């Protein structure tokens, strides 16, 4: 199980500086999809999930100064997961009746709250990791041939048989092994790079 990587101090320091748009862009680029996916996993509709992502990012932007002053020792990820959880819980509680699943959405029990807390934190860690992987994949994909990428995607992501993929690509089984291993190796390198950015 991968731990949620501590958000790099460097990026964090930059994000706190309101004049540094680039750092903020980078930050939002990772966290917007992360929050969207959590919202969808929690039963939000597409437009509402985009909305929630926007809301959380605004909350982060406005609260980031406060975090710096009052909770020096609180790790950023804890703080962020709390902001996210609160925003999700608020949004769930305020959802119109007709869109909520099951009974009255306004009545969230304490158990449910605690459960949501823990689950949201896990989701946050996983979805952060996913975003890093997806962005790394984008970078690797443009730097290899289409066949090489396909060999990786079909066999590793889609779980298809190597022999079958080799036949479809008109390549040898050895070439498919070679291609997917080269992509995997490069992918790990880029993931590391993105994490240490």
């Amino acid at each position, binding site marked *: 199980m991968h731990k949620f990587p501590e958000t790099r101090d460097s990026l964090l320091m930059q994000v706190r500086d309101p004049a540094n748009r680039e750092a903020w862009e980078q930050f939002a680029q990772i966290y917007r999809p992360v929050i969207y996916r959590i919202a969808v996993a929690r039963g939000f*509709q597409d*437009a509402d999930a985009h*909305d929630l992502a926007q809301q959380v990012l605004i909350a982060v932007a406005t609260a980031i100064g406060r975090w710096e002053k009052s909770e020096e020792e609180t790790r950023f990820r804890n703080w962020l997961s709390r902001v996210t959880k609160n925003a999700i819980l608020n949004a769930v509680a305020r959802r119109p*009746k007709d869109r909520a699943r099951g009974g009255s959405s306004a009545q969230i029990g304490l158990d449910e709250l605690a459960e949501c807390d823990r689950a949201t934190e896990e989701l946050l860690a996983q979805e952060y990791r996913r975003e890093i*992987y997806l962005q790394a994949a984008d970078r690797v994909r443009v730097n290899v041939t289409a066949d090489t990428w396909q060999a990786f*995607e079909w066999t590793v*992501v889609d779980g298809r048989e190597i022999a079958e993929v080799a036949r479809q690509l008109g390549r*040898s089984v*050895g070439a498919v092994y*070679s291609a997917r291993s080269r992509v995997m190796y490069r992918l790990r390198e880029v993931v590391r790079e993105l994490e240490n950015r």
Partner: protein
Amino acid sequence: MMTTKPPACANAARSSELLQGQLNSFEQAEFESHLESCAACRQWLEDQAADEAQWREASHLLMADPYRSSLDARREHETTGSHLIEQVITALAPTDDPEMLGRIGSYEVSGVIGVGGMGVVLKAHDRSLDRIVAVKVMAPHLASSGSARKRFERESKAAAAVLHPNVIAIHSVNIDGALPYLVMPYVRGQSLQKRIDAEGPLPQLDILRIGAQIASGLAAAHNLGLVHRDIKPANILLEDGVERVAITDFGLARAVDDASLTRSGVIAGTPQYMSPEQSRGEPIDHRSDLFSLGSVLYAMCSGHSPFRAETSYGVLHRIGNEAPRTVRDINTDVPEWFDRLIHRLLSKNPADRIQSAHELVQLLSACIAHLEQPSTHSLPSALRETKSRRRSWLAAVTAAVLLLVGFGVMTSRSLTTVSDKDEGSVTSELPDDRSAVGSEYRHSDHATQWDALPITTTLEIQRVATELEEEARTPFAAVDSR
């Protein structure tokens, strides 16, 4: 199975060399054919690339992603734009200049600035006057309609009459060729839509300044009897370097609407900034633009338009029937008085809106002064939460209660005969969920329409009276508490 030691194969070292890109193509091909027969080297290669958990993780994390599919779906309509560009570019006349894409009239086209529902905007060089211009070319499928061409000509000539710093000028209009086009100055900058996409909510002062300039441009056009019909962030240009905002596409929406309506029966493009009267296809006046401007102000505050749904139909339904979430619900930095201003512009009934663009300019200018120097410039009284407004609420409630009491006494006997069915139908008309998003708006709507409701039972009378009483006690509580 994870192996920690290289296999006892002569080619074992090739694995890490392959991964690190140290093999030339000949060596790589040779090693790949060796892999064909050597299971030990295959295993070793995979282990060198990543451990088992990492292979599994990559497989798991790179599976279908709802976020990206959602973005793809949202971008789908944009790709039809690239098709449109292609059509227009191929329709251009040939040019001798190899640097240029083609020629339209006497303009040498050097690039594409943008694409919209109406057509494609090209960047071009005007040889006769040696200046860079923007040429807006009507989309070929629209140009094939004779009535659309006529409208295009009429509307763009009318728009050319608007001379105002906040409205893009129109140099000339040409409808003689295969593709009608109009020529405008080339403005270096970005659309308000792009800025919102990039930054999300804008600073309050910027919102006011941009809003005041749009209103000012609108006022000039409205004075000439022109209605824009398609005020939205994509039609607002922010000029680089100067703090100037310019409205584009005056009156052109109508030409497009007619043509695309007759073609397909559906509304082209995004209806997100339409007014309720537009969404119902009713006749509109200048106040329709003011509603749309309210939506634009909303978008600058929140990062998105107020009425969103999965489908165009859903958007139109919301525009016509639903109150949007208050902007302060999304962005708490927005002052309450600005929330009130937006709320007024977004009134479903044009008569409830701020009545003219000119009035809005004055209001926004006063807001800017207030924001810059709160000590010397007070908030415009129209935006203050005044006592008189409270008082009018109280007066309405008092009148209502008195009326209800009298009504109840006089007719209490006959009311008992009203059937359950009627009672049910009335109840369903009334707001029943105060916790719902935006209920404070809906609630007020119902409360102010109390006299339009057929009040038929004593139970109903009591319910309405209680509601009005609560309403009077906390007329702005829902807004204030946030």
